[in-house]
């Protein structure tokens, strides 16, 4: 076990703990569940750290994806529903150290994403948020909103496409 690594995780916690806790809390609406999610996510980050290519990707993307999955799982367990298998998820991201310029990039990106979401019409945005923050399937969303399934599919698709088009020139991959 490397002392330096533990210090690095502490540093990442200083930088991203608030964002991780904010996302977990938004999804679970429960402080103690959100704490468990954040703890699990940082432990996963720690366990899997040796697998990452240090030169590529963003550690925060990866961390936030884990937080999202764990938080959605917690909500589903609470509702007595089966957890769904994780999508390909975290391994699509690879991690780097939490460097100042990465933090800076994320700050800029968060700004751009908030702007992008503001460009999406209300109904499409609400539909996307029900999927992302509540973990509902499109069938469940259709029931909840009392609209046909086809409407939900196209709202998810068109809304996300608007976000994507808005972000493409603004967020450098």
């Amino acid at each position, binding site marked *: 076990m*490397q002392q*330096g*690594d*533990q210090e*690095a*995780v*502490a*540093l990442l*916690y200083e*930088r991203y*703990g*608030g*964002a991780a806790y904010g996302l977990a*809390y*938004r999804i679970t609406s429960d402080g103690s569940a959100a*704490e468990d999610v*954040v*703890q699990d996510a*940082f*432990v996963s980050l*720690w*366990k899997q*750290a*040796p697998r990452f*290519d*240090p*030169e590529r990707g963003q550690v925060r993307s990866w961390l936030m994806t884990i937080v*999202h999955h764990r938080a959605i799982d917690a909500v589903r367990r609470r509702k007595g529903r089966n957890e769904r298998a994780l*999508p*390909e998820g975290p*391994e*699509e991201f*690879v991690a*780097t*150290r939490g460097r*100042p*310029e990465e*933090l*800076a*990039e*994320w*700050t*800029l990106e*968060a*700004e751009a994403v908030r702007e992008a*979401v503001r460009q999406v019409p209300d109904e499409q945005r609400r539909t*996307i948020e029900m999927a*992302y923050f509540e*973990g*509902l399937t*499109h069938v469940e969303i259709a029931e909840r909103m009392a609209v046909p399934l086809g409407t939900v*599919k196209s*709202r*998810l*698709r068109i*809304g*996300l496409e608007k976000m*994507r088009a808005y*972000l493409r020139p603004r*967020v450098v991959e």
Partner: protein
Amino acid sequence: MNCEEAEDLLGAWALDALTDDERGEMAAHLRSCARHAAAAADWRATAARLAATADVVAPPPALRSRVLQAIAATPQDGVARPVLAGAIPRAGDQQRRRPPPVAAARRRFFELRPAAWAAVAAVLVAAVIGLGAWNAVLQRRSGADVGRLATRASSVSALRMNGTQNAGVVVYYANEKKALIVTDGLPALNAATQTYQLWAISGGRARSLGLLPAPVGGSSVAVVPFDAGSAQRIAVTVEPPGGSAQPTTPPVLVADV
């Protein structure tokens, strides 16, 4: 599932909103269709960005020590397995992945290299550098991550502290009328009694740009609305918690944008 149906479900797939049956069929289609596999990865990356729209909330202070204790009690995965950027992993796929280059495998993931960042920053902030010069510097550096920040920038300026040039940078985006402030070597304050506050200075008048987040390891980052047409200088002062209406102390950091 055919291509038309897959196309139709891209949004729901990216947001993990498919039913279990649909998800299985979609996954099967993505394994056999390169076009939709690429599209699905792209859409999912967009969906993942929604994380940034949740408010940042300070966790309870006790969580930090809980996390660090849990980490101290948890062994790391022993074997370094490569993770390829953009790859969509599949069950049973692990053994077919390329092993990592030896040099990369030797490097510790968490090895922090503030010196590399400081070196780039030092070159950049030696003077107010135009975009062309910034790019030239970046092309000579392997730390191209920094370059991604600069690709849309209109100007880069030095942050000065007590006459030294190496206190960070201000990157100005004219199109968006925004400034990105990155500090380097900024001392921590006692949050109970003091905070850093940002100001736009124009003709001797100061307008608050808000509080600067507490620095971690000397580094703090903020994005603020800023128009170089109406103010030419950004300053940082030490103020009481919550900030002041006007600066009450001399600036500790200054940049001419």
